[in-house]
């Protein structure tokens, strides 16, 4: 599957969900599929897309939150799956874009090119609703089912190494500010 195709399909079904995109190509194609203020784009902190999404989900239990992470990033922080399995946030959906390589640094194979299976790891971490998607229709079906149900879910997508179709401006203050306003959390700013 191609990442931008999945991102465009995903963007087409979103309403007011918060979406946290991990560093590199993951958030590049999230942006390229159509910017929305409810998107948060990471510029560093590799491996923290799912923890950030968990934090948003805890703060906003009424909102659906989606974290999207690449395979290399998730490998850096597999422990977060155990935390999410334990906390079991009802409103959190996790998507892994797995091209089995560190695409942005030159395509070095990642552990998922050999033996690592993120869906199996997630199930073992307590996220029972974890599935590999077979094609773009199946991907959207799984995401839609996850968004309709209570409890964390993880959807894996095996993608190719097509380059990202765009990139957001690397302006962290603006990214964060727009995201917080979209979350309705901007009111928490200001002097005490």
């Amino acid at each position, binding site marked *: 599957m191609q990442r931008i195709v999945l991102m465009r399909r995903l963007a087409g079904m979103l309403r007011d969900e*918060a979406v*946290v995109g991990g560093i590199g190509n993951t958030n590049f194609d999230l942006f390229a599929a159509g910017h929305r203020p409810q998107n*948060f784009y*990471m*510029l*560093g*902190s*590799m*491996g*923290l*897309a*799912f*923890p*950030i*999404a*968990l*934090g*948003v*989900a*805890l*703060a*906003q239990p009424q*909102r659906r939150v989606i974290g999207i992470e690449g395979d290399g990033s998730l490998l850096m*922080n597999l*422990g*977060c799956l*155990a*935390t999410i399995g*334990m*906390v079991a946030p009802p409103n959190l959906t996790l998507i892994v874009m797995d091209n089995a390589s560190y695409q942005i640094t030159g395509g070095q194979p990642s552990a998922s090119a050999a033996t690592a299976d993120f869906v199996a790891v997630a199930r073992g971490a307590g996220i029972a609703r974890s599935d590999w998607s077979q094609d773009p229709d199946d991907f959207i079906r799984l995401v839609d089912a996850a968004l309709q149900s209570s409890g964390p879910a993880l959807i894996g997508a095996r993608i190719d190494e097509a380059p990202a179709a765009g990139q957001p401006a690397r302006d*962290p*203050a603006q*990214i*964060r500010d727009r*995201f*917080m306003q979209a*979350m*309705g*959390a901007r*009111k*928490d*700013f*200001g*002097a*005490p």
Partner: protein
Amino acid sequence: MPSASDKAWPDVVLETLKANDVRLAVYVPDKILIPLIDGVRADPFFTALCATREEEAVGICAGAWMGGMRSVLMMQTSGFGNIPNALASLAVAYQIPIVLLISERGALGEFNAGQVWSSRVVAPVCTALGIPHHAIERLDDVAFILDRSIKQAVATQSPAALVLSPLLTGGKVFAG
């Protein structure tokens, strides 16, 4: 601001967090922090969450802030050594006020050489990143330093680091 007078330091910390509407307490376990961890777990005011690693906790706290929820991140000095990149590229770059409560190992009677040098990175890293940092050494200072640090972090959209000194907590001593 809560009065420190006749209370133990963990009670003052918990009171001050509540007074500042800090509802999410993320921690990586540490022995000195037991009364704080037990305190946030026992009090329904707090959402208490044990993270697997300090970096992960920075992400959770950052997400919570952006969703409108204040948080505190409790860890040991050795755990601070795990988070400079997360602080630099997330909390500092995006201007996210994460309050770090750091239990100090590595000083004033440390018995484990593995703790000594990692504890020494806290102040230089905070200085390098422009993160305000203070050691809390006296019970009378706990409420003031924590209360003002939370308020400054929120008002200036900056992380803050507070080191709980053995002078305050008694530290961890060799049990044989």
